[in-house]
């Protein structure tokens, strides 16, 4: 038995561990009912399982209005300093507006990441209209979280993300969901080739042994904790990392140390 096993089985936060969630959202989503999608409930759930800080981008910014999403993000991070941090959503169909949104968002030091959702925007990662976004991210060496799902995705496949990672080596590419439940092998293959690709653990259909595989093949220094809160509940991911067959140091890297090393949380 260890501290992680006992805490998780008893349903209490792991003592002394301030988890950082690098992949979260906020607000309702057209396709589903979320019992309470707002920040106060997110904070309560975070407290329940020991998540100290969460980086989020509002859900309605992907299929609807990304500017309205950024408005909500900027307002909410002011309401919860030290707990909630922003990911600025961009949409390649609106190239100039996306770059101006980035300038607006990153004036706030609590915005720490860019979020791209290619399946929702139907704008390919390799679309020439994305160039200004990538240049902004590249100059600042920013984390850019990309939703990836299944290798056949024509808009934001893992392979497309990798080709952008080759073209823009200064961007830290966070591979959202690592391609989904069948993406483990290919995400590892790409991360082994490209040192600027980081693996996101967020997944509702999490394969048994996936974290152990990531750590063995890529190293825990490039695996980051994420949850999809409040789209998904964050507590399964705490159980998943905490009970994984990896060392305590690896768990600490995934839960928080990598995020602290790679992003600035003021």
């Amino acid at each position, binding site marked *: 038995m260890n501290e992680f096993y006992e805490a998780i089985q008893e349903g209490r936060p792991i003592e002394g561990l301030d988890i950082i969630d690098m992949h979260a959202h906020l607000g309702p989503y057209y396709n589903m009912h979320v019992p309470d999608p707002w920040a106060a409930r997110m904070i309560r759930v975070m407290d*329940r*399982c020991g998540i100290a800080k969460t980086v989020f981008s509002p859900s309605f910014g992907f299929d609807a209005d990304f500017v309205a999403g950024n408005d909500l993000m900027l307002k909410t991070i002011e309401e919860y300093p030290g707990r909630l941090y922003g990911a600025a959503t961009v949409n390649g169909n609106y190239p100039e507006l996306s770059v101006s949104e980035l300038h607006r968002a990153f004036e706030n030091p609590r915005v720490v990441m860019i979020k791209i959702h290619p399946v929702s925007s139907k704008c390919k990662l390799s679309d020439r209209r994305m160039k200004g976004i990538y240049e902004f991210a590249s100059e600042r060496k920013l984390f850019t979280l990309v939703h990836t799902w299944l290798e056949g995705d024509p808009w934001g496949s893992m392979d497309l993300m990798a080709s952008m990672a080759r073209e823009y080596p200064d961007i830290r590419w966070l591979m959202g969901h690592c391609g989904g439940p069948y993406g483990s092998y290919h995400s590892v293959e790409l991360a082994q080739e490209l040192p600027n690709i980081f693996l996101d653990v967020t997944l509702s259909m999490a394969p048994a042994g996936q974290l152990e595989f990531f750590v063995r093949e890529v190293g825990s220094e490039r695996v980051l904790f994420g949850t999809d809160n409040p789209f998904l509940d964050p*507590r399964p*991911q705490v159980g998943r990392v905490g009970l994984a067959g990896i060392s305590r140091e690896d768990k600490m890297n995934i839960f928080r140390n990598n995020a602290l090393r790679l992003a600035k949380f003021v």
Partner: protein
Amino acid sequence: MKKLSFFDANASVGRIGHPHLLDIPDAAGLEKEMARAGIEEALVYHLMSVHGDAPLGNSMLLKEIEGHANLIPAWIVLPHHTGEMPKPKELLALMKDKGVRAARMYPTRAMHNFSLEEWCAGDLLDALEEKRVPLMLDTEIVSWEDVHRVLTNHPELPVIMTNCTYRFNRYLYPMFEKFENLHVEMSRFMGQCCIEDVVARFGARTLVFGTNLPQYTGTAAVGRLTYADIEWKDKEAIASGNLKAILKESWR
């Protein structure tokens, strides 16, 4: 350490052609993954029954879990008309004789290619209902309209929905309002606070613990339930009590 006792409603043994990651075909491998998450018991089916041949997989299951008292068999069943499986009453007698405690069905053309309508599966559903043997249906396979019809026509049949994702509340809630015999296995029911919301509205009886091991990890479902914002007695019911109560009512 205060710990819940976990009884997994949705685990499998056997090899699959499209694994998510690990190759864990046997009972010992499944038990190892269960132990990692702290899961004591599981209701288990064989992947050969789903993706190969149902009768063959059912017999492989009994052989594979023999001597593993914590693994309880569930069979994949088909209507009898083609002769691949015995007539319903004979099938139920065989299941009872072999200690099989639950049935799973995979209708629709892409899977076992039969209809869940009464003219096709009605006799089998009647037989399961008469003995209160729980029927497990996969949300990815059957439509909610099918589920509604089964629950309406067979009000004494316990139905457990597997693979029920966090996106289905708009279907589920009106069904929970109507049917006491509907339960959801929670391996994919991972929407934020969905467990809390369902327990508050409909009670803890609606949910049963499950993982989809060894395709998915069991650690996520364990973390979801232990950290839930519900009373401990409700956690106990979901972790194992509800499934045990359903099984206790069967074969009466």
